[in-house]
């Protein structure tokens, strides 16, 4: 079932992500994706995540698609101008990839090539708009396409940002521009998330809450200090600190967060960041194997 169909059927949608390797050994990435097959409705493939140069998202999406796994093509505006972005969207569609998640992209200074010239010719809003334009058979210059693609377009939002209002204002623009679903930055505060969901209710767009598996208390502290829009409450940090066995605790916390938030939104997006093989356990613990809220 495609991601579009999953949403259409009102299924509680589950997505996960894989990161392409730095290099051409694709075995591990494919193994990770294989673990998630039939357990999730789609797998995001990150686009040079954190501005670290890697194998491309488009090629990796194609590899997944070839194996019958539903890919979500992450596209950022950091490395390509409007010509390359439009071209890659067309290429994706020609390879059978219809899901595209349109992002701004991290700044180049965060990655391993901080000297690079950042592009940002477009932004996430205009990228969505342009993808919609391609569907109408026209490129940004108004030139006619020989055959139009048809995408299922996603975008991101950061519910934990402070203040959150600018994020919501931009989210509204993204919906207007053509976003059909949202995945969020990692959320660790169900109460705050409930408030956020109230504030964006009027947008009437499916939202998948972001879950990042906590590996340790140190990781949580690091994220609090360095990752925008992410806040891990002290109680969770202490819980991780006290736990003798970190892995089961991490799975338990992720499952608990999902359980507390699954009634609030339309799905969950799990970012395992290297712990992909724990994702099935999280889904089991959250009772999501056969989960269907509608």
């Amino acid at each position, binding site marked *: 079932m495609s991601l579009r169909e999953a949403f259409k059927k009102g299924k509680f949608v589950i997505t996960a992500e894989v990161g392409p390797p730095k290099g051409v050994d694709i075995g591990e990435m494919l193994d990770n994706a294989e673990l998630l097959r039939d357990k999730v409705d789609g797998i995001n493939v990150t686009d040079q995540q954190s501005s670290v140069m890697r194998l491309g998202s488009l090629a990796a999406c194609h590899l997944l698609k070839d194996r019958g796994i539903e890919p979500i093509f992450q596209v950022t505006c950091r490395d390509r101008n409007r010509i390359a972005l439009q071209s890659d969207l067309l290429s994706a569609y020609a390879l059978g990839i219809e899901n595209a998640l349109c992002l*701004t992209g991290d700044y180049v200074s965060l990655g391993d090539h901080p000297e690079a010239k950042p592009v940002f010719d*477009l*932004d996430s809003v*205009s990228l969505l708009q342009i993808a919609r334009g391609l569907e109408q058979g026209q490129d940004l210059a108004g030139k006619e396409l020989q055959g139009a693609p048809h995408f299922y377009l996603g975008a991101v939002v950061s519910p934990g940002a402070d*203040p959150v209002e600018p994020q919501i204002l931009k989210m509204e*623009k993204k919906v207007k521009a053509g976003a059909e679903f949202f995945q969020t930055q990692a959320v660790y505060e169900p109460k705050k998330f409930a408030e956020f969901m109230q504030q964006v209710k009027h947008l009437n767009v499916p939202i998948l809450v972001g879950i990042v598996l906590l590996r340790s208390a140190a990781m949580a502290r690091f994220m609090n200090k360095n990752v*925008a829009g992410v806040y891990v409450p002290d109680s969770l940090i202490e819980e991780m600190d006290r736990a003798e066995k970190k892995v089961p605790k991490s799975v338990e916390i992720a499952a608990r967060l999902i359980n507390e938030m699954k009634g609030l939104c339309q799905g969950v997006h799990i970012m395992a960041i290297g712990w992909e093989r724990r994702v099935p356990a999280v889904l089991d613990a959250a009772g999501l194997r056969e989960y269907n809220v509608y």
Partner: protein
Amino acid sequence: MLVSELKPWPEILSYLDGEQSIFLVGCNGCAEACQTGGETQALEMKQRLLEEGKTVTGYSIIDFICDKALVKLKLMAHEEEVMAADSLIVMSCGIGVQATSAVIDKIVHPACNTINLGGVQGKWRGSERCRECGDCLLDLTGGICPLTACTKGLINGPCGGAKNGKCEFEPDIRDCGWHLIYERLKSLGRLDKMSTIVSPKDWSKMQPPRHLRPTIMWALEHEEEKKEVAAK
């Protein structure tokens, strides 16, 4: 020398929706030389506004509008007129618009597009920067340039990378430009401006004929040419 040209009149007029009284600010520096923001142009602007039924509460031509301290000093002499206005129209380069915005708590509208830098950027500028993009967006962004204040030059709102109002690039020293814009528009009660979807920029407006534009002579010659064409 910053080379600027007046925006098309309908665009300037579109900024003034719902606003009745306007205060005009011009510049006796580069904008005067480009014939976009000197006294002559300010009086022309005043006349056009009156014809549209607007009220002009006053005007001030500042010697070098890029000098924020001078802008503040000069506008203090017009305090009542400035306070009586719904907004200000600034007839100068993007730096002048931003410098005015930085010292006056009112919406500022750019009257010009800054095409090109013919030398240094202003004489006494502070933190304000202009990218000379040729299609000024300062009306929508509370007089803070998103191309220069945002590290990524985003034109449709913040990315998800800011923390505590700081940019993900150099978070210890660099503010998130969109956080500044948001706070500014919020304090002015004009957050509606942030909901406008801005089309991708036409970067070609920055380019030609750049090789011809780096001098004050170009601006003057260009104006002469325009007059000649008009005379024909």
